[in-house]
């Protein structure tokens, strides 16, 4: 074969290959706008895992396929922002993080018809409140989460440790229920020479501090129900003092609290470097089998302050874009997601939104986190984050910097909260 023929053959093969792949190698068909047997649902990786069992059951029952289009978390936000503002969304349903709901509220269709009294009664009150923006229900909660207390059972049940703790603090060693007990236990287990610390202090994420704010009896986090900035009220100050003092005064955490985020805290606990962690409940089922703490972890409700136990729920909602071509079919699927909500509990993340779904599993092995999760979510002081479209900016520009500055030696917590107040007022006005 001469050079020219070879080049021609190669080019022909290349063109054929490109033509063959021009439609895309990924499975499924995104369906045309009039095709009622296919729905497209935009979600992030965690949502795909959660929704897949429901999608499979729905396909079996109705013959309708639901394509779960997986996007990274930040990418999902960007895509939703772009498509909803363009007015020509390529999807029929979207999974929306709770903090995005107010931002997208004007672009999402109402689904009031799904929120019957029975439905509302089986959802956590905080979620029902959050789903309603400006008098209209715009999202059905499909899974939610909250921080609980994960602790090392092997340490807590060790007779020598129990005896030593009793001698030192005058009460039995047990999973802590309030701030004082938490501080005592964290101090007790902090043994830097053995690379063991009482707990972590997460300076790179704000949710945990905000949970403590609610435990301290604040009527809300950052903003009150009227939208007034309350970030420097006594509840916020008490919570920040408790939170930052764990690192500054008691030194019960590994180095680098300013940079410690969810991933770092989870890894520290799983590798046995911390005796306790306040963490999202799903983490219990995600402890790797070869982790140092595998099989040695207990779960308790989130600790409480003067207002008792409280957490910040982390729900996701299913919503419809306004003017979508397949709204009737999409609403039916969202109804199915509510009806079959318990199916999501069998996924690797194992989260749901209905109380009854969680209750079915509380006594089953492997689902020990559900009882504490229910207790935390149902606690009277538990509240969602404020419904403001500025939330992400408030977090990035005010809350995280405040938290990180509070973890520097000699920090003046009250002054930091005053500065945060000024910054947040500048953002929301």
């Amino acid at each position: 074969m001469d050079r020219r023929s070879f080049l021609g053959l190669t080019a022909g093969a290349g063109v054929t290959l490109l033509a063959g792949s021009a439609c895309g190698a990924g499975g499924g068909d995104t369906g045309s706008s009039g095709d009622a047997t296919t729905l497209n649902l935009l979600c992030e990786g965690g949502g795909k895992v959660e929704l897949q069992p429901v999608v499979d059951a729905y396909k079996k029952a109705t013959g309708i396929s639901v394509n779960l289009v997986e996007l990274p978390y930040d990418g999902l936000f960007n895509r939703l922002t772009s498509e909803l503002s363009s007015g020509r969304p390529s999807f029929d349903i979207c999974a929306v993080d709770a903090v995005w709901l107010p931002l997208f509220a004007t672009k999402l269709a109402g689904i009031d018809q799904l929120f019957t009294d029975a439905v509302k009664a089986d959802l956590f009150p905080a979620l029902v409140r959050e789903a309603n923006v400006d008098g209209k229900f715009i999202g059905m909660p499909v899974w939610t989460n909250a921080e609980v207390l994960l602790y090392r059972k092997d340490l807590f049940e060790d007779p020598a440790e129990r005896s030593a703790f009793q001698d030192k603090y005058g009460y039995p060693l047990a999973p802590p229920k309030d701030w004082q007990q938490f501080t005592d236990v964290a101090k007790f287990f902090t043994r830097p020479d053995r690379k063991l610390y009482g707990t972590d202090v997460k300076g790179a994420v704000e949710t945990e501090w905000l949970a403590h704010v609610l435990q301290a009896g604040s009527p809300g986090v950052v903003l009150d129900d009227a939208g007034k900035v309350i970030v420097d009220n006594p509840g916020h100050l008490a919570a920040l003092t408790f939170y930052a003092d764990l690192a500054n005064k008691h030194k019960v955490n590994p180095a680098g609290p300013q940079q410690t985020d969810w991933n770092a805290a989870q890894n520290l606990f799983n590798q046995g470097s911390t005796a306790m962690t306040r963490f999202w409940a799903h983490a219990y089922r995600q402890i790797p089998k070869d982790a140092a703490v595998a099989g040695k972890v207990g779960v308790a409700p989130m600790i409480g302050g003067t207002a008792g136990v409280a957490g910040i729920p982390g729900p996701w909602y299913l919503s419809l874009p306004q003017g979508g071509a397949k709204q009737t079919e999409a609403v039916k699927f969202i109804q199915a997601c509510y009806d079959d909500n318990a199916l999501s509990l069998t996924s690797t993340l194992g989260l749901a939104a209905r109380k009854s779904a969680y209750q079915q599993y509380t006594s089953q092995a492997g689902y020990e986190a559900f009882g504490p999760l229910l207790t935390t979510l149902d606690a009277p002081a538990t509240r969602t984050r404020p419904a403001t479209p500025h939330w992400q900016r408030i977090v990035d520009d005010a809350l995280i910097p405040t938290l990180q500055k509070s973890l520097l030696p000699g920090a003046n917590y009250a002054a930091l909260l005053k500065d945060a107040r000024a910054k947040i007022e500048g953002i929301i006005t």
Partner: protein
Amino acid sequence: MKRALLWTVAGLVVLVYAFPFVYLVLTSLKPPVDAIAVPPTVLPQRFSLDNYRTALAREGVADSFLNSVSTAAITTVLSLALAVPAAWGITRYRTRAGRVLLAGSLLVRMTPAVAIGVPLMGIMGGLRLSDTPTGLALAQTTIALPLAIWLLASFFESVPREIEEAALVDGCSRPAALWRVILPVTSGGLAVTGIFAFLASWNEFLFALLLTSLRAQTTPLAIANLQTQFGLDWGPMTALATLYSLPAVVLTLLLQRRIVAGLSLGAVKG
């Protein structure tokens, strides 16, 4: 002595630049638990291919590789096919319109991709090219083409006019002179331009995020999908990133001589 110093400095520079990639590869070879250890270690205590197994077993990963290959191939072919006549016309005819086109292509290059991403979504939807490698490649060509035109214009400038004129005297038409004489002479430059166009598509993320859904997702998106609200799958992420960087590394090494030749070809002409 001077030579040893030069090698030492060069070695240090290479180390600084190569460290992130070396760390990525080493992390991908650690067992999953070691990959997420806090604080992290550079060298693996134990070696494991578990991260690779997990990454490759994920739904959609193999498809995303195919999509990346086809999208990058279409983008490269399209960029070269459009840039060669454009750059050749600009350098040979030296018209005012040509200069404006050259400056204009630079302006397009300076436009943030996000500014054209949303309009492109509408255009691709209208053309029914949403969620296809072809649609994505068309979008990515808007990034690769201006650079390709600039690079090729510089390479064509360095070819003496006499070569083309000799071809015309020998009976070639202008297109035939371009095809049979100029392009072989500037093959190094073509290789460089092709690689840049390929890499522009291979590493592109934003358009892939906005313009693909189910069928045409590329690997950069598949890698990013490993970070969810519920955690970061660090081990498989490093494994997938390592695998994905291999074709670009191999391609660059294979064409290294041509790239160097091409770069110097563009540099000799003032």
